């Protein structure tokens, strides 16, 4: 930190000579040396990542970053949140500006391969949907022929929308908007018939309306949007840490480990899976270059996956999302973590 402030003061000279604080070696070593995790997040999406009035970040993606920081550095507050736009997110990751990108980004083939990212898993199974006013009299997306549709630029939703209307031989007029706040405003004013984005975003948006009952979310989900954190391609150890931190949060829910009972379970649990997860038996942490208690800290940071979900986007929050696909596989959802052994 001191170094970077210092850098600011001698910026010109630094730029000329191309010094600067070079980041060498593995991402894990860099993060440890820096004492801080750089985490790329959304510039402001309620429930997933948004700064409050004091600049404290909260949200579903933010919680993952904190858990990762807790696992690696032992302190969930040692995170620097880097707000990224739809345009700058992947560059921020590939250029090393952020160590992990948790910005509700969809895991797609080309992003995984061509953009040289590694998605470490899925923290939210989403899909693209449509929201319309009830008085429009539309009950299915198939009836949207000729409609004006608000859409955020630079997202996969833009491509899905084009494909969906093409496949169904329908026409539409896109209204490209720049941010979610802008989209809501356009939709509320009636500047578009339908607003399309990830179903979670639609639910959050609708929940915040003064008259949610006058808006309906159409039944069609026109795409698969597995959202997950991503790391740079090539640093597999760092990828493992990011992946298994996410898995630890999910597994913790599956085994009933919560932030409240974790201390007790460390002492008393007889379930070998839980013992391995919490580092009481076997040195799983050492295999990824961390200590034995890494997962314990990750879970303690914000609780397990279920607790994070409930606190940020669950049914008790203004956003009010149901678990749906994001329930544990034992509950009929898709969350299924490989075993910890």
């Amino acid at each position, binding site marked *: *930190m*001191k*170094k*970077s*402030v*210092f*850098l*600011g*003061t*001698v*910026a010109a*000279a*630094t*730029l*000329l*000579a*191309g*010094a*600067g*604080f*070079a*980041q*060498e070696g593995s991402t894990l070593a860099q993060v440890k040396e820096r004492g801080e995790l750089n985490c790329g997040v959304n*510039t*402001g*999406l*309620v429930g997933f990542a*948004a*700064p*409050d*009035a*004091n*600049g404290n970040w909260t949200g579903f993606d933010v919680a993952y970053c904190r858990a990762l920081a807790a696992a690696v550095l032992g302190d969930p507050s040692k995170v*620097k*949140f*880097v*707000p*990224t*736009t739809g*345009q*700058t997110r992947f*560059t921020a990751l590939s*250029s*090393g*500006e952020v160590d992990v990108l948790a910005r509700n980004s969809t895991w797609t083939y080309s992003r995984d391969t061509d953009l040289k990212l590694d998605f470490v898993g899925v923290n939210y199974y989403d899909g693209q949907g449509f929201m319309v006013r009830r008085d429009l009299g539309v009950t299915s997306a198939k009836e949207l022929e000729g409609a004006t549709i608000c859409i955020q630029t630079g997202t996969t939703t833009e491509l899905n929308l084009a494909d969906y209307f093409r496949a169904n031989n329908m026409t539409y007029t896109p209204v490209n908007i720049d*941010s*979610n*706040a*802008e989209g*809501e*405003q356009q939709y*509320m004013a009636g500047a578009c018939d339908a607003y399309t984005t990830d179903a979670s975003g639609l639910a959050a948006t609708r929940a*915040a309306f*003064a008259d949610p009952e006058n808006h309906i979310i159409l039944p069609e989900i026109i795409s698969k949007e597995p959202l997950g954190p991503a790391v740079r391609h090539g640093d597999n150890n760092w990828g493992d840490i990011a992946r298994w931190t996410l898995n630890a949060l999910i597994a913790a829910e599956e085994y009933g480990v919560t932030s409240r009972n974790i201390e007790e379970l460390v002492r008393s649990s007889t379930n070998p899976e839980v013992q391995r997860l919490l580092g009481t038996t076997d040195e799983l942490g050492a295999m990824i270059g961390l200590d034995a208690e890494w997962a314990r800290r990750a879970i303690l940071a914000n609780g397990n996956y279920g607790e994070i979900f409930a606190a940020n986007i669950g049914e008790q929050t*203004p956003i009010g999302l149901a678990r749906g696909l994001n329930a544990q596989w034992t509950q009929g959802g898709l969350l299924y973590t490989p075993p910890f052994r």
Partner: protein
Amino acid sequence: MSDTHAQTVPFVRDTMLPAAPPPTRESGAVKWLRENLFSGAVNTVLTILGILIIWFLVATFWDWFAHSVWNASSLTECRQIIAATWGENARGACFAVIRERWNQYVFGFYPQTLYWRPTMAFGLLMVALAPVLFSASLIIRRVVLAITTLATLLCMMVLGAPVGWLVFAALVLAGGLLASERNIAWLLPFSLIYPLLGVWFLWGGSLWGPIFVLVGPLLGWLAWRLLAGISPLLATVGAILVTVLFWLLLAGDAAQSAQAVLPLSIEAVRSDRFGGFLLSITIGVAGIALSLPLGIVLALARRSDMFLIKSLAVIFIEFIRGVPLITLLFVASLLLNYFLPPGTSFDIILRVIIMVTLFAAAYMAEVIRGGLAALPKGQYEAADALGLDYWKAQRLIVLPQALKISIPGIVSTFIGMFKDTTLVTFVGLYDPLKSMSDAVRANIEWKGIYWEPFIFVGAIFFLICFGMSRYSMYLERRLQRDHR
């Protein structure tokens, strides 16, 4: 002739009549109205049109402004208050959002307990600017510095600054006032070290960093003194080399060691906490301070006789002027990492400042080139006749006059650049206009609030830019008088 005439006239008045009052249509308000508003058919139509425009604006917006609510915690509450006070269908402004969130618009996410630090930095900035900007008149200086002193100290007190820092600020401000009364040039050293102080106040951290940055040029100066006897050119090269090498190789470690021996630091604040007008002003002031010297160098290069230097300057200036600022900001946020050695990354605000500086410098160069071209050729010839070398001639004769001529252009470039700082929203920084408003609107309480933040932010931009342009006009007039 007149004699004969006088005899033929039957009556001659031999006392003067007292002056009669002019007819009502030729005096007072009526005359003014007739001359200025209704002097002809076209003018009458224009006047009526003007009145209609004003009436339309007032009729459209009056009730909205009149029904302002300043005390509420959410938009819904605002609407309830409006409905309760002015009837069910009344509309009104909800300026409560400004009252609730002013700190975010002004300071971004800067830690609340440290708000006094940017305030102090801004106050001291005025002192640092005094010898540069307000050197023209003692009265202006007195007024500006007195207001700055009072406002800064008051704000700092309200924002809860520690007593030690209050005393420090009071001392510096009083010193500034005193120096400006006696001899404004005394403040120049302060102006020179202010950039380091300002950075330290804003970002915090160890004081040793700025100190060792300052040591660099001092060592350079020492080297220059030692080598000056041998060869002036060698001395210059040596001085620059010593400074740069010291910065690159020693300063960082030295600062850390010094910090370990004697900790001198204030709480560090990271760039991602910057936002709102604090961000705009930081980028603006840094860009202005850096782009003026760069612009002068570019302008001189473009007017140089040396073909290569001239071509390089032309290519640079025309390239920068040919592309939108937004693409340069994209370069800052997306491409700079490609151009620097692998693994290098530095602060996004710094990257944006660099790009904004380059952008403004190209425009500045053209403005100053205009000033250089407008200077009579005799001035150049006089400088040559006195036997001054190139740099002396530029420094003593050409540039002071050329810069004076270009003041309006320079200031309008500054204003343009300050307005353009709002574009940083497109690279994910929290500018006051769009990103900050979006962030405020992302809260459920203030969802859907649109006009009030626009009006607030617009008004502040207007005050700053209008103030700058008026001051430049004043300066221009004043310097013109000296010139005559």
